[in-house]
C-alpha cells in the first residue's frame, strides 16, 4: 500500500486553536480524512501540517433553523443520510448521499471535507449548488459567507484561505419545493460518469404547475460552478411538464464541458446530462407539495 510523505500533526483543541494553526500556508485541516489522506498516500497532496479538527464537535450539527437547513462542516455523510429533517426538506441530499462512496466511508467522511476537497466529481458540490446553498467560513476575525456557486475556483481549489475553515453550509428552505439527484456510475461507489441534481420551486395551480425557480447542479462534466445556468434560466416561468424538462436537459447538455475519459466518451456524457437532468427535474417536480 502506498504511504504518505512526512507530515506534522496537531490536534485542534478549539475552533480558535484550529484557525491559528491553519494560518500556516502549508497546513490542511483533516476531519474524516477520506478525501485528503488518499491523496497524501499517492503523494498528490503533501501538506506539511495536518490539523485534526475531529474534536470540534460543535460543527457536527444538522438542524432546521429559522427557514434554513444548517449543516455543520463536521457532519458525516452518514449523518446527512440519516437526518430526517434534511431528507424532508431536501430529498436531493439523501439521493446524493446514498450514492456517495460506500457505507463505511460515509461514517467518517464529512460534508466539509468533501466540499473543500473540491473534486470536480463531488456529488455534494452539485447538490448544494442546485439548492443555492451558502458556505459559512470562519476566520480568526469572524465569519464570512460565500454562495456555494462561488465557493469552488476550479478543480481542487476553493476560496478558503489561510487561517480559515469551512464551518457550515446553509440551505434556504422554501415552500412548494421538490428536489432530486440522478447519478450514473460504472459501479457502486465509483465517481459519477455524470450526475444531475434539480431543485424546483413551483407555483400556480396543482393541475398545471409553473416553475417559479429552478436549480440544476451538474457533476463531473465541467459545468461552471457545477451549475447549468442557462437551463435554470430557461425553466423560469415555464410549465413544469415533460416538454420543459426535456428542453432544459438539452440546454444543460449543450452548456457543459465533459471530457472524454475512461468513464465515457464526450457524446455519451452529454447525452447523460440531458437524460439525467430531465429525470431529476421530473422527480423533483413529483416531490413538490403545492399546498405545503
Amino acid at each position: 500500500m502506498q504511504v504518505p510523505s512526512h507530515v506534522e500533526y496537531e490536534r485542534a483543541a478549539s475552533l480558535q486553536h484550529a484557525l491559528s494553526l491553519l494560518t500556516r500556508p502549508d497546513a490542511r485541516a483533516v476531519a474524516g480524512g477520506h478525501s485528503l489522506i488518499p491523496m497524501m498516500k499517492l503523494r498528490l497532496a503533501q501538506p506539511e501540517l495536518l490539523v485534526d479538527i475531529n474534536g470540534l464537535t460543535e460543527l457536527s450539527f444538522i438542524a432546521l433553523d429559522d427557514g434554513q437547513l444548517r449543516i455543520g462542516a463536521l457532519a458525516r455523510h452518514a449523518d446527512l443520510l440519516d437526518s430526517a429533517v434534511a431528507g424532508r426538506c431536501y430529498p436531493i441530499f439523501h439521493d446524493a448521499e446514498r450514492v456517495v462512496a460506500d457505507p463505511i466511508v460515509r461514517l467518517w467522511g464529512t460534508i466539509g471535507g468533501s466540499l473543500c476537497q473540491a473534486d470536480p466529481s463531488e456529488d455534494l458540490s452539485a447538490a448544494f449548488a442546485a439548492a443555492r446553498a451558502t458556505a459559512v467560513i470562519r476566520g480568526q476575525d469572524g465569519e464570512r459567507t460565500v454562495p456555494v456557486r462561488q465557493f469552488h475556483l476550479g478543480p481542487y481549489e476553493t476560496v478558503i484561505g489561510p487561517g480559515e475553515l469551512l464551518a457550515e453550509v446553509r440551505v434556504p428552505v422554501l415552500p412548494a419545493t421538490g428536489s432530486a439527484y440522478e447519478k450514473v456510475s460504472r459501479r457502486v461507489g465509483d465517481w459519477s460518469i455524470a450526475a444531475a441534481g434539480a431543485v424546483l420551486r413551483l407555483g400556480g395551480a396543482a393541475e398545471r404547475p409553473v416553475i417559479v425557480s429552478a436549480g440544476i447542479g451538474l457533476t463531473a462534466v465541467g459545468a461552471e460552478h457545477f451549475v447549468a445556468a442557462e437551463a435554470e434560466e430557461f425553466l423560469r416561468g415555464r410549465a413544469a411538464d415533460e416538454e420543459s424538462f426535456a428542453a432544459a436537459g438539452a440546454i444543460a447538455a449543450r452548456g457543459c464541458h465533459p471530457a472524454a475519459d475512461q468513464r465515457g466518451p464526450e457524446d455519451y456524457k452529454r447525452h447523460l446530462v440531458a437524460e439525467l437532468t430531465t429525470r431529476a427535474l421530473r422527480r423533483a417536480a413529483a416531490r413538490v407539495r403545492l399546498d405545503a
Partner: protein
Amino acid sequence: MTGAGGPPTAEPGFGRRHRKEDQRFIRGRGLYVDDVRLPGMLYGAVLRSPYPHARIIAVDTIAAQAHPKVKAVITGETLAGLNLAWMPTLSGDTQAVLATDKVRFQGQEVAFVVAEDRYSARDALELIVVDYEPLPAVADARRALDPGAPLIRDDQPGRTTNHIFDWEAGDARRADEVFRDAEVTVAQDMLYPRVHPAPLETCGAVADFDRVAGKLTIWATTQAPHAHRTLYAMVTGVPEHKIRVISPDIGGGFGNKVPIYPGYVCAIAGSMITGQPVKWMEDRSENLMSTSFARDFHMRGELAASRDGRIRAVRVTVLADHGAFNGTAQPSKFPAGFFSVFTGSYDLEAAYCQVTGVYTNKAPGGVAYSCSFRITEAVYLVERMVDLLALELDLDPAELRLRNLLRPEQFPYTCQTGWVYDSGDYPRTLRLAMDLAGYEGLRKEQQAERERGHLMGIGVSFFTEAVGAGPRKHMDILGFGMADGVELRVHPTGTAVLRISVQTQGQGHETTFAQIVAEELGIPADDVEVVHGDTDQTPFGLGTYGSRSTPVSGAATAIVARKVRERARAVASAMLEVDPADLDWERGRWYVRGDPDQGRTIAEIALAAHSDLELPDGVEGQLDATCVYNPPNLTYPCGAYICVVDVDPGTGKVRVRRFIAVDDCGVRINPMIVEGQVHGGLADGIGMALMELIAFDGDGNCLGGSFMDYLLPTSLECPSWELGETVTPSPHHPIGAKGVGESATVGSPPAVVNAVIDALRPYGVRHADMPLTPAQVWRAIQGRPLRTDLAIGPE
C-alpha cells in the same frame, strides 16, 4: 453398518462439512506473507518506470544510498554483475529483473531499495534519479507488426520485429471446404480485453539468505512453491537442496501468483547483499500495472452452419498481446494455451484456429485469472458465435444449443482439434438450467417487456472445460512434467498426515484432501492433517492453477490412500492370521469375508504396523505410501449458465437480475466448497463483462492502475446465485472428480454478454466488446460501439 457386534462403518468422507482451516482465519490468525516478521528484517521497494518505452541513460543512486535508513540500493547494473539482471520466463523467453538498457512497459522495475522500514524505503525511491530517453511505444497490438513499428525486444540478437510466434490447430483445408459449402456463415471480430486477477492480497516475498548455512528461505505468495524453488536454484546459483520456499496462507491467487516476479528476485538479492531478511510486498498499483494480466486476445470468429441450425465448423484467427516479455504460464507445447478447445460443446465437422503472438509495450503475462490456459477466451469465442448464429437464423439460443450439443453416447469424444472429452450429458445439464430458470416463462416475460419498451435480456452459455494438466507425454512447463506427488503416513495412534504438492489459495484443500483420505481409508477428516506449501515438507509438484488440484493431486491422494489400504490389508492379514485374499474392505476396516465380526479397524492396524508384530515377507512396517500421479488425460467439467439482465436504454446501465448456473464437475468431494467456487467465478463474469478493464492510452500509459479504475464487482452488482448440478463422473479419475475452480469464470462472461446483446436486440445490436459499461451499451445502441482496449481519445 457391519453385521451384529462389529463397529459401525466409518462415515463417508465426501459430503458437506465445515472447513478445518476456518478456525484460524475467523480469528484473524492466518499467516500471510506480510504477517511474516523476522528479527532484523528489512523492507524493499521497487522504483518503476514512468515511461512505456525508453532508453536508460543513467541511474543515479547516490542520494538514495545516503538516506540514513537505507541499507542497499540495487540496480540492473548491480544485478548484471551477479548474472541476475535477466531471468527466464515460464514461456522460454527472458524478462528483465531490473532494467539495464531500456524500459519496455510503464511500471517496469528499474531499481530496488532496501531500508529499515517500509516508509523509508518508499521515501528513498524519490531520491533515485533516472535519466530516460523516451521512445515511441507500441500500445496498439494491431499495429505491433506494422512495418516500421518500434522494436521492443532489441535485447534479442537478430530480432527485427515484435512477432513472437504463430501457432495453429485443427484442419484449415477441411474448414475451408465446409465454409465454402455451408448454407449460412456468420463472422464477428471480438476482443477479450486485458483484465487482471487482482487477488485481494498483492504479491510479495520475504527472502532470508543465511550466509553461514548457505541456505535461502523464501516466504512467497506462490501457487507453485516447488517450481519456484527449482527456478531459483537455476537462476541464483544456490543449490536446490539449500533453498526452501514457503507458501504460507495466500490471500487469493487466480493465476496471479504463478510467475516469479522481479520483486522476489530483488528481495533475494537484497538479503544476500545485506545479510538480513528482506521483505517486499507490492502495492496495488504495482500489482495491477506489472504483474501477470490476463486475456488480451483480439479474435475474429467465423461459424458455418446449415439453414436448419446445424453447426458445422468454427474458424478463428487470434492476435495475442503478450506485453513486453513473453511470460505466459502454460504448458510449453501450447503457446496459445488450450485455446484450441474453442470447438466447444458441439459436434463439428471441422475446426481451425491460427494464433499470432506479439510483443507490445505493456506488462507481461496473459495466462491468468482462472483462464484454464486460455479456455476463457475459447469459450467466449464459441458461445458468442453460437448466439450470433441464433440471431442470424432467428432461432432461440437455448434451442439452437440443444440441437447441437454433444450427446452422451458420443463420449469419450475426440474433438476436431484433438482433445478427448471424457464424459458428459450436455443436454441434461442445459435442460436443468432451463428448468431452474423457468426459461419459457422468461421468454414470454421478455416479449411483454419489449412491447412496453423495456429492455430485458436472457443470455445462455454452455461450456466445456479441459483441466487437470496434464499427461507427461503431452504437457510440460519449462520441461517439468505435470505429475504431482503425494505422501500419506498413518501414525501409530491412527491419525494421519497427508503431504501434497498443490497449493491452496482459498480452495479448501486442508479440508477436501482430508476428505479424500477419509473416504478411502475411513480415518475421519478431522484426524488427517494436510501439509502443503513448504518445499522442505512436501513432495514435488507443479502447484495449483488451471483447476488441476482435484484432477491431479486429488487423484494422487486417492491412489496413495489405496496403497496404504493395501499395506493395511497385509498387516491385517498378519493380525488375523488369514490370507490377504480372504479379506474384504468396508470403509475404515478390513474384515474376514463371511465372518464380519473378525476384522480390524484402520486405527488398530496402524498401531500394529508400528508394533513388534511379525509381518509377511516383503511387507514393510509402519503405514505409509507415496505416489506420483501422471494423469492419463485432462478432465472435462462442463456447465450451462443462464443470465437475466435489465438494461436502461436512457443510460446504458445494466442490472443483472438473475444468474442460474448448473455445473457438472463429476463427483463432488464437498458440495459446499464446490458451490463456493462457483459463486466466486460467477462474480468474475459480471466483473469482466461489465466493468473490469486494464486500459491504455495511445501512448502506452496504463490507465488501470488502481481500484478506482480497475473496478471489481461488489455485493450490489451480484445477484443471489441460483445453482444446480448434474454429475457425470470422469471415467479415468480414481474418484470420478473433475475439478471446478475455474469453471464459473470460464462460463459466465459469455452468459452476461449474450444477455446484454439479447436485451439490445430491438436496436439491431449484434455485438459489442466487453466491458459493457454504461457508455459502451449506450454507444452500441447508437450503432457505434467503442473499441475498449485503448482508452477513449478523439475519434
